[in-house]
């Protein structure tokens, strides 16, 4: 299990527990449920690079305590 820190820099900072082999899409779904919004309406970035839905967190080298930026569409 890893815990990823997601910040929208608008006043929300969410810690999401997930697995490394989860895809970004899955991660987004969990995150969206926590936020109470649609998972299709958010964009995640890691160091300015947009994360694509079909790729796993491991592939993006998202580890425990990784900081992800959250943007709303």
């Amino acid at each position, binding site marked *: *299990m890893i815990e990823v820190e997601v910040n929208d820099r608008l*006043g*929300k*900072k*969410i810690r999401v*527990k997930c697995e490394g082999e989860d895809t970004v899409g899955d991660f987004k*779904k*969990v995150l969206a*449920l*926590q936020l109470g919004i649609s998972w299709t309406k958010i964009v995640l970035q890691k160091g300015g690079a947009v994360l694509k839905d079909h790729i796993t967190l491991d592939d993006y080298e998202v580890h425990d305590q990784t900081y992800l930026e959250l943007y709303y569409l």
Partner: protein
Amino acid sequence: MAHEISLSLEETNKLRLSLGLKPINAKADDKKDVSRTQGKENKREPNDKSEGAGADSHGYERSAFIDDKVSKLRWNLKRAKSKISSPVTLVDEDDAADGQDWLTSVGTRKKPKRTLDKVYEEQEEASQDVELGMKISHRMSDFSGRRNVILTLQEASVDAEDKEDVLVDEGVTQDLQQAKRLELKRMNQDRKRKGVGANFVSENEDQEATSLRLVNGKIVDEETLTLQQEPEASQDNRIKASIEPSASEDEERQTTDFAPIKIKKRKKLKSSSLSQKRSRPVSQIPKVTLVNEDAEDPAEEELQGFLKIRKSRSSKADSSERSAEQIAIEARKEALERKERATKVANVKISQEMVLDENSVFLHNLKKDLISNKSSSHKFEKLNLKAPASDEAQSVPGSKATDERASVFEKKDEPQFHEGLASTLSFLKERNVLPQQPKASTASLRSKDLELLALKQKLETRKVKEKFKEELSQDKIQYSREELDRIEELQHQEIAKRNQSLQKERLAGYNPEVKLTYKDERGNELTTKEAYKQLSQAFHGTHSNRRKLTKAQRKVEQRNQQNQHENFM
């Protein structure tokens, strides 16, 4: 401030289940984490041992940190710090004791040896029996200023077994290269100033090569070695070598000096050679033998000759066979034909307004049995009989002539179209193909009618006039002139009334020459061109610009004025 949301593992698992994702197994992860940390500790232990008391002395306790990452980071930080504080980490303990008074030992031979010791100890462990002697490609002075010197094996080809291993300090070699480059730069600048001829003696040449060797972890001058251990030299696996400048010879060559620049000139392809290439050798051109196709075959020639002879013969025979009488007969015949034609043309003229046009009536009359069908037309036989009769009357009577004429008429039974249009016409008349001058008849009819109508009109007018006269005479009243005029007008009106219908009848087929005139809105007459332009512009919904319009208008008005002027004149 950021509002941090964090769900517990159970809650997230619920969410994941609701999404159809695999729940996170916390226990397994914990175990993994534990194993991971343990592994790390295990890995670190030997490191710690090797590093000796250095790390321990800083009082580093890993167990204090729960978080893996932070602990790792701290560990790295500590390590870096320790490195900075005590640079002699790789040195043995007994050496480390010496290391305390390193200041005093600056410039001595021991220092480079110190760093190298460990490496060569390892090597000794690997092959204890073999005494290693490695060449070092630097002078002692190079090492004197610095403490930790790392020597690496100089690159050499694998094949060259004879070559000795040479130790090189990368930093020093780089410095040397840099220095050389600078020197060369300086030389170039000098050369530019003083001219190419100036001689320079490179400092490298001045430098004396001193050879150092590494034996048993100690750096030794080769000279001393050779002096001291000459008998041992053969036993030791040592190879003599002199110190060379670190850079390889090739490199030196490249860097040293002005090599004359070689520029390969591009060979110009001569145009002549090109043309030669293109032009074929003369021998290759196939020789064409000219064949005169007009030249006759012998056989053909024969044939032609024969034909010629025959032709000439036949013509000759014709000419010879014709007698003078025959010629006379032919001439007469021709003359007769001409006469006939003339008479027929005259006939046609007489019959008036015979127009041959390709209307349907004419085509309808053309039948298959036109030529053979002569019996039906009796009238024309009479006509034909008439014509010769008239001819006879006109011409001087002669037995011969009459006979010939008879023969001609006999011939006439056959259609003779070759004699010209007149004969053809006559033939057609014979067969009653041509309509019986319908136009002429209709025209005459029409003219008669018109005459009749005119007469009727006249009659009507007379009647009206008489009526008026009678009325006037009956009344016996003296009319004033005005009244008389009025009566006359009335009379005219009456006549017009009465003649109206007749006039209409008269003018039913009235077809005078039509003259079209075009007028614009202002009543000016336009030429066809201008009128067409107006029409087409109206049709297409376009119009010319104001300037053009005014220009055209002016033109039209000018012309109109001219016309009027001419009319007045």
